[in-house]
């Protein structure tokens, strides 16, 4: 069995400063990997490098493509990488507005990826968009509304539907629950957990919220100052933190 995503020695510098340094891990099919750390620890830089938004200085990102086996996405042509980004990959932004087209209706937002890969039958596109909106609990009567008319939680769910409609195998999530209130967060997490399990998705989730990784992630990676300081099974890392920084992180969570 080959890992779905094999990351080797990713280093990204911003001039003299380090974005992230010598990060490597393997993500297996159906596995959810959490990356935690405080602001500025290099989590988002790492995610950007993995998803092809930022060119890393060194390293390899091997993705197990459907027809060609493991290939280094950093060495792919831009056309191939962008094709991958709208078929087998998905990227959920922290701010739903970054991932949605605000001037296009909810149905159009979901349908865009289908049309981008060549769907040209309006009825089919609409039916599939409707199905996906239903799965993320957006009712049919809101289908032709623009995302601007949606609440924050709905926008985030719409973004998820828009990303998952082409049946990707790998989802990158950057703080998917950031900026939402706790009850909306809980519903979103519930939804995400259901979708991940049901579709057998692999995911890389970047967050500073330990509760999110506790619920969603199988494995956990803790980052500080661009370095990975600890990694292991989620429950293991959170219940028995070894590194001083992880201990600080775990003990900083407010108890209600």
């Amino acid at each position, binding site marked *: 069995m080959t890992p779905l995503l094999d990351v080797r020695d990713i280093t990204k510098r911003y001039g003299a400063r380090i974005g992230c340094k010598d990060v490597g891990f393997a993500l297996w099919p159906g596995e959810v990997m959490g990356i935690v750390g405080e602001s500025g620890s290099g989590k988002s830089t790492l995610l950007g490098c993995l998803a092809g938004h930022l060119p890393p200085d060194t390293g390899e990102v091997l993705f197990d493509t459907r027809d060609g086996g493991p290939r280094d996405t950093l060495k792919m042509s831009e056309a191939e990488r962008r094709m991958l980004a709208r078929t087998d990959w998905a990227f959920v932004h922290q701010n739903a507005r970054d991932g949605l087209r605000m001037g296009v209706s909810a149905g*159009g937002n979901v349908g865009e990826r289908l*049309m981008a890969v060549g769907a040209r*039958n*309006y009825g089919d596109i609409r039916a599939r968009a409707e199905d996906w909106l239903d799965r993320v609990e957006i009712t049919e009567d809101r289908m032709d509304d623009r995302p601007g008319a949606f609440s924050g939680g709905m926008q985030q769910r719409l973004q998820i539907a828009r990303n998952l409609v082409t049946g990707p195998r790998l989802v990158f999530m950057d703080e998917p629950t950031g900026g939402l209130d706790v009850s909306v967060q809980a519903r979103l997490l519930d939804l995400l957990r259901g979708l991940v399990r049901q579709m057998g998705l692999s995911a890389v989730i970047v967050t500073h919220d330990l509760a999110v990784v506790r619920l969603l992630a199988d494995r956990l990676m803790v980052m500080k100052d661009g370095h990975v300081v600890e990694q292991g099974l989620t429950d293991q890392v959170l219940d028995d933190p070894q590194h001083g920084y992880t201990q600080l992180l775990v003990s900083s969570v407010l108890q209600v």
Partner: protein
Amino acid sequence: MTDYNFAYLDEQTKRMIRRAILKGLAIPGYQVPFASREMPMPYGWGTGGVQLSAATLTPDDRLKVIDQGADDTTNAVSIRKFFEKTARVATTEHTPDASVIQTRHRIPEAPLSEDQILIYQVPIPEPLRFLEPSEVETRKMHELSEYGLMHVKLYEDIARHGHIATSYAYPVQVEGRYVMDPSPIPKFDNPKLSDCAAIQLFGAGREQRIYALPPHTKVVSLDFEDHPFDPSKADAPCALCGDTSSYLDEVITDDAGTRMYVCSDTDHCQTRREAGHSKETAA
């Protein structure tokens, strides 16, 4: 008028524009940047088209200028006069007699021939402009032929109006490659773009872009399988010449809602009336 070079622009500028035209013809539908000049008219009045005309005109040419189908409206009259003055070329209102036709928002009803050049005035050359705000990104999309977004616009039309409501500047794909804005011609004219015998040149002065269709280029209007492209027009005969197949303008004749439909192509209408057609002779 010896103070002006032939056709207003200096020879070096015309050479620069001709190079852009040749490149455009070599890559049908691709928007070629060019160093657009200030023309003695405001942007939006056809500065791109005028520069193309200036670069293509020769002293032997016969020029026709169309504004929304008509030969006798402000834009057409002033551009025609401009070239009468600066190039001293012969002009005509009769489509088959013209060798260079500059047009704003229409394609003539009369079929064009191999020895003609049709020049369009283009306000916004980028078909993806209002869908994707970044020009860097739209260029990338053209480069990689990523045109799914164009269908999102058509999807939105159907979701909102029940049919594709885009009625002018209807996006087309050229030879299965570049998606192109055909300038704000009515979609009724879109089928005439394809397999046209004449050279078609598109000039956007403010946006500094030239693109072109060589003769007999395949041009397809985008659509959905279950919502095919429909080149619609007003369902009436022309009130003057009785033609049922030409594109019609709706003219409001009083404040009680009375209206008449007349051919938008004035030359076409005139020719038919001279041949004895009228509303009464229409079948």
